């Protein structure tokens, strides 16, 4: 898989072939087919999914020591958008390749969503225990909402510069947590 990623970084997704990856990894084509009996399509799908999982694990690790959900979301958005901006794979993607990548990722999407949701539900439970949530918040539903927002913003920031800490904090306080977390200053 690492060899596959290096090949994609160099030549783009469309140029990816089993031969290249075998050469890069220093193994035979037969070996590659043993790992990926479905051939190139399976290799692309599994490699892409693996990369996505690695991306989210990296975010979770980076925010693990931060004290509040707000801090974690802000840092996660910042770091996530930096990683995506820097990613040579994403930057070099042409239209047809983007189509292929999205198709490859699609089967894993509900699972990714679920894993992030469960993670956020735990964080929300901590916030609730600390008395920081508004009354009547359903943890599972709120976690689902936050998951959608997180995925949506990392994919399509639509004008927000998430590498800017002030903007991101404002965004998180408002669109992410505005209805979930109690206002820190009581409304007049």
């Amino acid at each position, binding site marked *: 898989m690492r060899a596959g990623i290096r090949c994609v970084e160099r030549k783009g997704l469309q140029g990816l072939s089993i031969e290249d990856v075998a050469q890069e990894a220093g193994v035979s084509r037969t070996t590659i087919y043993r790992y990926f009996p479905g051939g190139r399509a399976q290799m692309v799908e599994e490699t892409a999914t693996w990369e996505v999982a690695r991306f989210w694990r990296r975010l979770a690790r980076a925010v693990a020591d931060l004290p509040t959900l707000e801090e974690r979301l802000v840092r996660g958005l910042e770091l996530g958008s930096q990683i995506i901006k820097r990613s040579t794979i*994403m930057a070099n993607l042409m*239209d*047809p390749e*983007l*189509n292929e990548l*999205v*198709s490859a990722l*699609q089967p894993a*999407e*509900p699972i990714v*969503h679920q894993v992030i949701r469960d993670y956020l539900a735990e964080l929300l439970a901590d916030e609730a225990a600390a008395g920081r949530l*508004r009354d009547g*918040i359903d943890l599972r*539903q*709120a976690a*689902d*909402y936050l998951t*959608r*927002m997180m*995925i*949506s*913003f990392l*994919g*399509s*920031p*639509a*004008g*927000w*510069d998430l590498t800017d800490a*002030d*903007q991101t*904090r*404002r965004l998180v*306080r*408002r*669109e992410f*947590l*505005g*209805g*979930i977390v109690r*206002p*820190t*200053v*009581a*409304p*007049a």
Partner: protein
Amino acid sequence: MVSGGSTPGGPIAEPAQADAGVDVAALMSPAELRVADALLRCVARWGMAKTTVEDVAKEAGISRATVYRLFPSGKDAIVRASIQAQVARLVAVISDELAATSNLEDCLVAALVESTRFITENHAFSYLRAHEPESVEAYLAFDRLDGIFGLAGSLVSGSLGRFLPDDEAYEVGVWCARLVVSYLILPSDDVDLAAPDSARAVVRTYLLPALIDQQAINPTHPRPDPVVNDGPTESNPEEP
């Protein structure tokens, strides 16, 4: 909302969406629009993967060369134009509904419900969702969506502007578009934005409190493009 022309499950006549003129015409030329609409008809018939530029040209009744002159990069560009045209039509179709609302909550609920319904009733969309879900996502992915969100936000901000300052209306419009797309891509067991009650619960839980309390939450108010912020706090009392 597709003005009587298309009954769901009926023959695949192109949705006879009355073009509220201005909006779509401002986005592209009549020839481009003709090609964009021809693509939607082809997709509604046999899907995205099997639709070629040749098919689209034939359906539009113009030559392949002309299609490529209008859209040099081919099919992907035509798809983007089709989506833009549909977003503009969507906003034109729902703007009456939005104008009929008398408060922010109702306006947001109407925006979520009506746009979700408009999109799910579209023949091209429903074909793709049933048969080629991956191609729906491909065109709603990453930076492609930024443009759609921006367009939706600016088109809908007129209606929301009755209740919010302009730049905020734009932001909230994008926020709504984001939610609509998210629930279309990955439907939820708990939330159905096409159902008014469900959409209202989302608006009340996640949107309104943030809009009403924002002064209190964030007095310094850093934002991309600074706004003139007048009053000390909104007068709306917090919902219990």
